[in-house]
């Protein structure tokens, strides 16, 4: 692989759009089992799953579809609580959702009644302190730390990052699928997340858009260095993006293997090493390529 550019994680990279400090969260999933009740019967989805994500690491969860990966993501996001075991972030058990761990779902799920800009600004708006008296217009805002940017500046930066500044006044129904998913990404990034949780974020995009968005995601991650937990069933996507690929079995999901991918970024899709890893991972999934 010929890499003409150095890896873009040099600290002096001019004016990074998002925090460059080692701000990634450490995620520990230990001995987690979970089940759904479906028509009264218990349906096990996760069976004693353990793994962890180091700060700033990009981890892909790979498995057959419907195996329970998305359930795992909901647990990490704090949207559900595991039946058994613990999920913790930076050593603290996750008890509920928190804007430091943002989820991007397969569907962009933008609010159709909000413009692109208002959708991106959802997080800052939701986290804003309530007005003490709604009619007085005075908000009981905690003083911002010195040097922290205002919500409007962060929204501007996020829109610029995904290249949608010109569309900030558009409504979601006016966007293409790829643009909508970019807005969803910007909506997540605005919150300066420590962990980005991606649930097959490019699954519904056309293949060209998907490739381009994968490249952009790598750039973003190299720049901001949050931790990433990506669920996918696309082997190439997992290998192109992640430091480490965790392979799951059929439902109930168990960790069957971990594949470390040390190839430097930016990666090349037909790097022989990736091709080799791909064969290995497909074999782990029971597919002889």
């Amino acid at each position, binding site marked *: 692989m010929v890499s003409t550019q150095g890896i873009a994680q040099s600290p002096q990279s001019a004016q990074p759009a998002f925090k460059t400090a080692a701000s990634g969260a450490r995620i520990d999933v230990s001995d987690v089992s979970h089940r759904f009740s479906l028509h009264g019967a218990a349906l096990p989805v996760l069976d004693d799953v353990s793994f962890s994500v180091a700060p700033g690491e990009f981890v892909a969860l790979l498995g057959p579809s419907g195996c329970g990966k998305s359930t795992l993501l909901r647990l990490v996001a704090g949207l559900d609580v595991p039946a058994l075991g613990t999920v913790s972030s930076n050593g603290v058990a996750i008890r509920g959702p928190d804007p430091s761990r943002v989820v991007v779902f397969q569907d962009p*799920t933008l609010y159709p*009644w909000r413009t692109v800009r208002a959708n991106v600004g959802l997080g800052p708006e*939701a986290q804003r302190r309530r007005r003490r008296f709604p009619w007085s217009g005075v908000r009981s805002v905690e003083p911002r730390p010195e040097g922290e940017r205002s919500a409007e500046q962060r929204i501007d930066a996020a829109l610029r990052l995904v290249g949608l500044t010109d569309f900030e006044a558009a409504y979601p129904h006016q966007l293409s699928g790829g643009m909508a998913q970019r807005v969803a990404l910007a909506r997540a990034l605005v919150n300066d997340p420590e962990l980005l949780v991606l649930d097959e974020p490019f699954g519904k995009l056309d293949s060209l858009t998907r490739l381009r968005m994968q490249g952009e995601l790598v750039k973003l991650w190299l720049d901001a260095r949050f931790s990433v937990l990506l669920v996918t069933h696309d082997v190439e996507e997992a290998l192109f993006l992640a430091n480490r690929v965790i392979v799951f079995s059929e439902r109930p999901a168990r960790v069957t293997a971990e594949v470390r991918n040390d190839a430097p970024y930016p990666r090349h899709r037909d790097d022989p090493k990736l091709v080799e890893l791909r064969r290995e991972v497909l074999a782990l999934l029971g597919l002889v390529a």
Partner: protein
Amino acid sequence: MSGTPHFDPASGHPGVGFQPHAAGNRTKPSRVSVASVSQAGPSLLPAWLAALAWLVSAGLTRWWPDADEWPHTGDLLVLKLMLTATGLLVGVAARRSILARQPDASPSRAERWLTAMPWLVALAVGVTAWEILSAKLEWLPRPFFAPPQALIAVFFDDFPRLGSSVAHSFGLLAYGYVIGAVAGFVTGVGIGWSRAVGYWLHPVLRLIGPLPATAWLPLAFFFFPSSFSASVFLIALATGFPVAVLTWSGVAGVNSAFYDIARTLGARPGFLILKVAIPAALPSVFVGLFMGLGASFSVLIVAEMMGVKAGLGWYLQWAQGWAAYSNMYAALLVMALMCSGLITLLFRFRDRLLAWQKGLLKW
């Protein structure tokens, strides 16, 4: 908003299509060859026809003597001549704007008025036929069918009474509708959002809601201190039920992923209700408001006929007592304009609030 029952926008006035993209009126500049330039604009014929029809109708009024003497026939003549002038003006203005128009410009106001001209022709034909059958030939039995000038007479001579009736009706309706809509909205959000509220209110709503509000009439007039407050209660009841049910269904049907997104972004319950559930439910809420408005009209008129001593319902009752049939027709016309106007207002408000939706129904 696909689920609007009992309401077909296509049957509305074709002349009121204030859509900027009314495709039918648009010329396609790239495909227009020089030879077909004369066909580029919409036809002016309906405007000329409308003017002609009203002119002929005016001549009929002027030179064909009525079978009996009717006051205000002169005013009818003036009205017809004004409508003739309207047709001419629209035709001239549309012709001018079509000639001056850039190929890609959207239709001007005059051209949009042009789409109403076929209706002006039909109106001329209808009014003339009505006048011939009533005033000229008296084929329609006399006291029950009034000629057009009798309606004009009512509007001129009985204006104070009719005007105050409209004001009273409007006041009563506004009180009842606003109270009912707010109560229904709050109830609907409560049932849709909170399991506890749903547990207690849902059975009550199911039992009381389908009961026609007018069934409460005898009791309401007995319980309430005044017939006005009783009527406010009845109108609110009639409005509240559809608003509550449709708000509830709107809130219950919100995509749960919208909540997940907001929660991961740090939203509290207040934000989830005010900024997620309610905006997402608004299209459905407006269906409820529309149905509630229709229900409130009917309760309003019944309440005014039964107990309130003012308003259009009372006016109808009063006119019936005097066998003043032309007054009844006039009151019906005013009532139709008022109800239709209020519904138009509601839809305008909705269009403004829900501009983010595509494919809104046009009223």
